[in-house]
């Protein structure tokens, strides 16, 4: 009985389709809408641009990257048998509906779903709509039937995804308490100059992880015991920040270390005051930088559209879980930044080369994320994958070349010491923590057959 009705329905669909095809054959020939990896890059780049405008902190940005990629991936994997769905592999995800309309162009749907999911996550929807609608115009004029079917399907998947996304505790964490500043505890993080912003995302460890089993799965070892006695490990590391940055500063703006620090700054909101002027220089986040590297690698390796989605999805999962792991430690140890301690105890006028970002010190976010992203990328593209990193050119920074993702990650990590915003332990332990997350993501996710 069920089968019968299904067959009847199929017949109806078939008839309509034949009729429709007949009609469309009569009109000027309708070609397939072809979307390429470049379209995918543009969609991701658009989200990056909007994120810069809207000002999302690094952890939140990682969330905005990952879900649209997963939506695209699930559509793609349903069609492309070389890939496995993430259902059962990431927490709570259920199978997306299969397309019922044979006019659905799955690659087109994957791209549309990416934009639709992105739209729910960013603030300036109008900016994404503008971008989307101009593409829609092109696609509709090319093959309206295929476009509409693909769009309808993409929207269905997007709303399916939304139900899952909404359960990740993001909205609950919005209303959780702010970080409690208590300057009477000497080791405790406190807001830093010049904007003295609140500690951001103190509850990010409550966000649902995707691959790792808990925020604390790769809890790093403790940082050197807080102590301001000369000769203590902690004090040595504090002095290391002070001395290294002073030496670099003495070398001048052209020193390689300053170039490295600035290249990997990746601070979405640097507050600048000049005289009475205040403004923010806004850049991409550490996650966005690695998403940019993913694009560079995908291009260099000539990945197909489907392979591109795979690469972005896997890398962004690595980044997403890395932030949860890192933030779990940050608000566990709540460690004070070098800038605060140096101003208090060593040099009232000292300023770091980079602006200290508004959250606790240990472990270094960029180190963890770079560790994880580079490990995942190595698993996709192989080790010793040389690339020229032009991600920061838009922000007036040069191109840097790397022999491998791991080398790039190591440089990103050490850049935080040069920038004067992290102690060495946060860099070393952070890189290790990130690589552990990356290995786990690589080994536990069976995405490619």
């Amino acid at each position: 009985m069920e089968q019968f009705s299904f067959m009847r329905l199929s017949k109806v669909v078939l008839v309509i389709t034949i009729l429709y095809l007949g009609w469309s054959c009569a009109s000027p020939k309708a070609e397939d809408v072809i979307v390429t990896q470049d379209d995918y890059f543009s969609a991701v780049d658009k989200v990056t641009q909007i994120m810069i405008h809207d000002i999302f902190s690094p952890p939140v940005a990682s969330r905005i990257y990952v879900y649209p990629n997963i939506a695209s991936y699930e559509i793609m994997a349903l069609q492309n048998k070389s890939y496995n769905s993430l259902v059962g592999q990431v927490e709570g995800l259920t199978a997306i509906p299969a397309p019922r309309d044979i006019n659905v162009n799955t690659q087109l749907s994957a791209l549309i779903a990416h934009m639709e999911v992105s739209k729910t996550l960013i603030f300036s929807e109008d900016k994404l709509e503008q971008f989307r609608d101009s593409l829609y115009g092109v696609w509709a004029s090319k093959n309206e039937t295929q476009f509409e079917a693909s769009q309808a399907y993409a929207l269905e998947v997007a709303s399916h995804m939304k139900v899952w996304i909404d359960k990740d505790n993001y909205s609950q964490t919005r209303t959780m308490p702010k970080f409690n500043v208590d300057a009477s505890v000497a080791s405790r993080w406190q807001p830093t100059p010049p904007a003295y912003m609140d500690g951001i995302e103190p509850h990010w460890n409550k966000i649902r992880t995707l691959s790792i089993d808990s925020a604390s799965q790769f809890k790093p070892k403790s940082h050197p015991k807080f102590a301001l006695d000369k000769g203590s490990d902690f004090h040595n590391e504090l002095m290391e920040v002070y001395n290294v940055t002073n030496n670099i500063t003495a070398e001048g703006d052209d020193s390689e270390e300053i170039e490295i620090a600035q290249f990997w700054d990746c601070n979405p909101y640097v507050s600048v005051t000049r005289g009475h002027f205040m403004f923010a220089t806004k850049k991409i986040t550490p996650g966005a930088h690695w998403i940019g590297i993913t694009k560079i690698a995908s291009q260099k390796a000539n990945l197909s559209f489907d392979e591109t989605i795979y690469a972005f999805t896997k890398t962004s999962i690595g980044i997403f879980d890395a932030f949860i792991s890192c933030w779990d430690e940050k608000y566990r140890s709540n460690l004070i930044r070098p800038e605060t301690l140096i101003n208090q105890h060593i040099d009232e006028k000292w300023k770091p080369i980079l602006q200290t970002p508004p959250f606790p010190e240990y472990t270094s976010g960029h180190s963890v994320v770079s560790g994880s992203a580079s490990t995942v990328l190595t698993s996709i593209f192989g080790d010793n994958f040389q690339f020229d990193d032009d991600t920061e050119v838009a922000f007036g920074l040069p191109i840097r070349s790397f022999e491998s993702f791991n080398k790039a990650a190591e440089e990103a990590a050490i850049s935080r010491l040069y920038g004067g915003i992290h102690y060495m332990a946060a860099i070393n332990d952070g890189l290790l923590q990130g690589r552990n997350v990356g290995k786990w993501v690589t080994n536990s996710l069976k995405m490619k057959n």
Partner: protein
Amino acid sequence: MNKLVYKYSGLFCLLMLLVNCEKNNNQRFQIEKPINSGLDFSNTLKDTIGQNILDYLYYYNGGGVAIGDINNDGLSDVFFVSNQNKNKLYLNKGNLKFEDISETAQIEGKSTWNTGVSMADINGDGFLDIYVCAVVGTNGFIGHNELFINNGDNTFAERSGAYGLDFTNYSSKATFFDYDLDGDLDMYLLNHAIHTQESYGKSNIRANRNDLSGDKLLRNDGNRFTDVSEAAGIFGGPNGYGLDVSVSDFNNDGFPDLYISNDFHEDDYYYLNNGDGTFKENLKGAFGHVSKFSMGNDVADINNDGYADIISLDMLPEDEMVLKSSAGDDNVQLQKLRTETFGYHYQYSRNMLQINGPGHRFTETALLSGIAATDWSWSALIADYNNDGHQDLFISNGIPKRPNDLDYINYISDSQISKKLSTTNFIDKEALNLMPAGQLKNYYFEGEKGIRFNPVSDFADHQASFSTGAAYGDLDNDGDLDLIVNNINQSAFLYNNQTAQTNFCAVALRYTDKNLFGIGTKVTLYLGEKELVRELFPQRGFQSSSDPRLHFGLGKNSTIDSLKILWPDKTEQIIISPEANTFLTISYEGEASKSISKNLKDASTDLVFVREDSLLNTPIVHVENDYTDFNRHKLLHYKLSDRGPALAIGDIDNNGLDDIYLGSSKNQQDQLYLQTQDGFNKVKDSLFNTIAINESVSAQIADVNNDGHKDIIIGHGGGEFFGSSEVLNNTILKLNATLKSTQLSNDFEDTAVIKTADFDNDGDTDLFVGNATRSNDFGFIPESYILVNDGGSFSKQSLGELGMVRDAIWTDFNGDEALDLIVVGEWMQPSFLVQDDERFKDVSSDYGINALNGLWRCISSFDIDNDGDEDYVLGNWGENSKFQASPDAPMLMYYADFDNNSKTETIIATKKDNQYYPLDGLDRLSNQLSTFFKKKYNSYKDFAGQTIEQVLGKDHIESAKLFKVHTLQSGYLINDNGSYRFMPFEENLQVAPINSMTKVESKKGKGLLLAGNYKGVIPYHGKLGGFKGALILDSNTIIVGDELGLDFYDKVINQLGVIKINNKDYLIAVVHNGTVQFYEIK
């Protein structure tokens, strides 16, 4: 003939009035066109390298104005500072016609960048000299401060070098006064730092002298000035962003003191003159808080009480569009860091009106007074412009570019522009164009009796402008004060005062040879009951200097009782019945009339309360635990966790002497002091440790189980507990050999008050339990109830959801000999609950209580009109915060789960220009409701000007629970034959919340003592600490402030009580987070 003239002149006057009506639309001032007046000066700015807002922080500060009669022809002349171009001097030719004599006078100046100007007779030759400040030593700015000595023939000679006043630093103003009372004029030089503020250094860096930016005190050693700053105790640190200085004898000791306004996070400085050539800085001791981005200031006695008050300007916008797109106050954690870790004082970004009094501690009232928000403000000039006997206020304002525009700060998304801004030296036109301009109309307020000001928006037919320096003087000698305002890129304004035909008194002084103009003289004008006081310190107004002629408005009085002149040498001269409506010149009469004045006011010696700290061996201290409600409830405006501690006085140990119970905050121990004949013994009991987690908010001492021993009934609450937290439950403490605690109720609510009474007359103690709200669900209204005592066991009689209860009294308000209940609280009206056959019913409206919601905090019965029946005195929030409410425009609070995340929020709206707007800005709202608001508003501009309906959406407005407040005034319900009418107190009782009251009997008779203040608000409201206590004897006799002998200033008094010790009455005042005070009641 005489008659005829009179007749005709009458007609003429009438005609003139008609003409005036037509021409001026009855505006207070008429702007005189430059083409008519000849005052064709404009401070024109041209951006160049080094001279632009990026390279020089104070590029838009404009130039000063000075008014003074430089040729002694009886007509006041005008000097303008041009920042980049030549300074100008205009000779007054009469009838508001001026002649530009700048070139021949040789005062045009040689510095690159000029700022302020002062006129003073520095060499004592009877002619006003001119001192012009300059910024030198940065950005290629050259020159030096210039001293133009008046040659007496309309020409000047620059002699700064000879006088030792040719400073090459970052000056903005100089003020001349005789600080050491040696008869000549000394100088305070105000300098400003010019570096960008990035991090807060410790506040004590102000002690490190910096020659370029530090202020200086110069002693006149006979036409040669010596820098005595360091020895005199004047700060000259690298972070002194001095924007104005005023001189006044603030503490009425005969020595001139100083108030310095500092921009940014540096505190203002308040220097009291020690009388020995040194000063003591005492800002923290005398001010609860000050303006943050302090700009111009002015000092004058505003409320005619004989004490000089201070206005200090800031940049809080009035306009809703600007307000919501501009950066505002710090958040509460940053405030804490800045005050506690870095050592700065409490500063808020708004104008401040600091009202001085007998204790020389200032109560800040700008919000109450209606002058807190005048946007980007430079000059404040207090004077009686309408001659009605009350001081008025003119404020100049405007900024060519608003650097604190939030969209500009956050969304100049063009990275090229921000890159250019951060790397290039020359200001990019494109980047500047993106920044909104702040072209504004100047403000004018007219004062009334007391401390309120009424804005007069249509006071002149003038354009929006960038107005900076300003000065006043009677330029046409018609008996009212005219104003001159220096504008950027626009002709200066001459505001011709149209007040004519009112009564005035103008006084010019002739003192001794080195100070002929009598700088520092204080003149008191006696007018019936009124005493109007003026001090002659002409340097006032931002970078400016006003006419050294004192001006008094006389209102309807055409005669003056007398004038008292207190000369700088403290000799006094009295002139009986001087002629009004003339220009008096009063000369010092020298030794002949010398009589040392007793004018110097002291605090009253007739104190009602005398501090007695030795009653206990160690002081009782209340410690509030460190908890920031706003971290958890980001939309709260005031804390819920700081209502304690409870105070109860009674005989616990049955020895006939009253004991003291003091509750505690979370994790602190309650305290019990037993009174013996020899003093108090503190009870040490481990139970206090066991129950320390409780927050004890309200307590009563009564015998609840009829065993002949009194118990302590404790109401627990506090904002830190929620859900079924045991510590919320109320308890009974019994003292036998040891203390025992038993549970009173099992309601898990935040109890605010417990009140005992035997309402059913059955011989035992019944209890009213009033609950406030739920800490994780502010806006939720729990049940309040009565626990009916029946032989030691309680049964509950619910009173329903009364509101966010804070206080209650058992009282027989209907005179039927049965106790009724009046309950007060926040966002509710006083509830009159009548007892009818042992049940209670809300009959408020039958007793005249309608639309009387307040943020009520306490209630007491008191026969305030001495008519033999009980009236009810009510403590409210007061009118000195950003909250605004009136019966016609109640403050609203919407309560709902706006973003459907199973957590409720409350959003407050107040009315402004006939529309309701959210009180919070976008950042605060999206702190709690991030996606809800950030998706809806992509920029601050989109959000600014949105009404509460637009912000929340119609559906939410309709479905949310709505709370209202109709009045924030404290006052009393007067009993008119059984019906009650609310009578608000005068403004001096509205300066802060009133938290507690107690009846006292003193030598003044029966009275009700009121105490209050509150600091648990977000920095947007500031700090409500200026209430010094008040003793009400009757509705017409209320003694306020320091005269009582109470030390309540800037302290939060949460409980008052009276205890008998050695048969004398003592007052106990519980200071929240401070030391409990004891006073003997005289």
